[in-house]
């Protein structure tokens, strides 16, 4: 079935097709239409879920963790301030090994108030142990929502679907909606194994640990995050087999013979492809990679694409004050292990904060600057800022 859906409604369809059982939710622009849609779907009997109209995002995540510990498939959605408020519970979900799935609509941070897009909210959760899956278009949003449950439940790690505010959340695109029974075959009901609050098997979860035990619990998270790279690839492949659409943690575009490779994520990937095509027409040896996963970070795949390139231009729609954009940090540290001759120069660019447009022209400009400058003039270069 094909329908014209916004990114937010695509998330709701994904959750519905995944037969989510418990949805604790709290409204925030621009996430709201996700949870409104789910409320409507529930009211119309399209999905048999327990909807908890919680009083905050903090409680939304706490209730998701509780529901997951009760053995149910739990889902919520938020953005910006809501995700910041959840931060403590994001760590908690990972530690409790609850495979909660959350859709985050990238919204920039206040103050000053803003509702427009950038990735500061999700990249700020980098250390929480959540799998983070960034999306470029609404089809990818729907498909990733379904896959996120499978990935999370396989690993017993929580997973976040990330989509740009407004560019996806409120923009409509024609979308292929997978058949419900096929999704059910692809994603069977959540099986909590023996890790749930089973009255017939009374156990205590999350009790105080001493320093002789805590580190092992953390190491298991790290071990499973490393495993996640393989699991995500397998789920992508299985999804492609069943539904005919293939996703990648690192998707290279015309990068093979490129001297300069641009690195983007989210909706900038679509604009980026247009920019690359235009530049190629003009004879430039330029390519691009689109990153889907921030965590686990696909180091090996990135190295495989970028090894031996002359220059890499990374566009970060986020930044860490006092340091650099987050994707740039990650890529710098991944590439450092390459021998000097194979190690490209890294040009970090900050662009599009608070929803400012990242147009084809801007991407072309970034490319031109990268080619022109023998070395980057700074550790990060801010694009289009009126310095006052």
């Amino acid at each position, binding site marked *: 079935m094909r329908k014209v859906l916004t990114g937010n409604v695509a998330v709701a369809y994904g959750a519905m097709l995944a037969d989510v*059982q*418990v949805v*604790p939710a709290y409204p925030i622009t621009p996430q709201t239409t996700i949870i409104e849609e789910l409320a409507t779907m529930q009211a119309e009997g399209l999905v*048999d*879920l*327990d909807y*908890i*109209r*919680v*009083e*905050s995002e*903090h*409680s*939304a995540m*706490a*209730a*998701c*963790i*509780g*529901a*997951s*510990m*009760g*053995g*149910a498939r*739990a889902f919520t959605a938020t953005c910006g301030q809501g995700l910041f408020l959840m931060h*403590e*519970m994001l760590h*908690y979900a990972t530690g409790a090994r609850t495979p909660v799935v959350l859709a985050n609509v990238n919204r920039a941070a206040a103050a000053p108030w803003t509702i427009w897009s950038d990735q500061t909210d999700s990249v700020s959760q980098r250390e929480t142990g959540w799998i983070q899956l960034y999306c470029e278009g609404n089809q990818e949003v729907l498909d990733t929502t379904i896959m996120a449950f499978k990935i999370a439940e396989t690993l017993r790690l929580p997973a976040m679907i990330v989509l740009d505010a407004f560019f996806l959340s409120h923009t409509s695109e024609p979308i292929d909606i997978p058949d419900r029974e096929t999704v059910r075959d692809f994603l069977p009901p959540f099986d909590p194994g023996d890790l749930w*609050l*089973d*009255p017939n*098997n*009374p*156990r*205590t*979860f*999350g*009790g*105080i*640990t*001493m320093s002789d*035990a805590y580190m092992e619990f953390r190491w298991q998270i790290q071990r499973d995050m490393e495993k996640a790279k393989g699991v995500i690839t397998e789920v992508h492949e299985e999804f492609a087999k069943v539904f005919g659409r293939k996703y990648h943690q690192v998707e290279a575009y015309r990068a093979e013979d490129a001297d300069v490779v641009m690195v983007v994520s989210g909706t900038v990937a679509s604009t980026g492809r247009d920019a690359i095509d235009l530049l190629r027409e003009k004879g430039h040896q330029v390519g691009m990679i689109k990153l889907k996963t921030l965590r686990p970070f696909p180091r090996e795949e990135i190295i495989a694409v970028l090894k031996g390139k002359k220059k890499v231009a990374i566009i970060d729609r986020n930044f860490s004050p006092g340091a650099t954009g987050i994707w740039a940090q990650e890529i710098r540290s991944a590439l450092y292990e390459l021998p000097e001759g194979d190690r490209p120069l890294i040009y970090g660019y900050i662009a599009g904060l608070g929803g400012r447009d990242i147009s084809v022209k801007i991407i072309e400009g970034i490319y031109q600057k990268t080619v022109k400058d023998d070395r980057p003039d700074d550790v990060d270069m801010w694009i289009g800022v009126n310095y006052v």
Partner: protein
Amino acid sequence: MYSLNQRFDNRDIPEDELLTSGNVACAGCGASLSMRLALKGLGKPTVLAVPACCWTIIPGAWPLSIMDVPFFHCAFETTAATISGIKAAYRKRGMDDICVVGWAGDGGTFDIGIQALSGTAERNDDVLYVCYDNEAYMNTGIQRSGATPIGSWTTTTPVKNPKSEQKKDIDAIMIAHKIPYLATATAAYPHDMIAKFKKARSIKGMRFIHLFAACPTGWRMPENLSIKVMRLAVLSNIFPLYEVENGETYRQTVIPDEIMPIDEYMHLQGRFRHLTDEDVKEFQKMVDKRFGHLREDFEKKN
């Protein structure tokens, strides 16, 4: 029927123990005894969620646990939201008979957890929330909470600057949510307490039980005084025992034979040692005033 030195016939207290010996509470801990009695009243199947508080420590460190019911350690301010989530999962999975219980301290209830608690109460989620009230943040070393009584010493309200605000009236706040059941109880009156837990189990919707739980460590008193001090709190109307259905039908369940002045209650505890006779008189007035309002409710609604 109720006086300070009376003895209870304990033969009718259920023998089943849903926790084993070997907990690591301080001697004389009212919170520890409270859990034992509460579980006797509740029976199985019961599932517990407990936030950061002394009860994080009491069941033992990983991998040991004294609990014979599933027990989830949740984040400090999330007890109510966590049990709402657990209950929703059971409902969806056809296990609606499980009694889902949140068990939090006064700090986790009166202060940091009140937002989530209010949400769960307002939605009338089908859970039992228990606050064991030892009138301070004990787990972190006896700091003031919204439940600490006026005049009390704590480590953040030292003797030269003791707590100057009255205890927050959490029961009135919960009653205002019109929840199906609210009760106050204390382990010093075990029959009354167990009956309330049994009753709570039989009711659907949001239930709230406020337990008065002596803490010899934080109250600066010998551990053999816990029961006596809990009884004195009831007999001097500092912590009256009652229940309220649907926010309107009040019933006092333990009516003292004779109402005692608060003096003995105060004098037994080091946390009040610095107070003058004048101070105690002032506090007596506050206790009388508050009980006066409650008595009107007991009489009016019966």
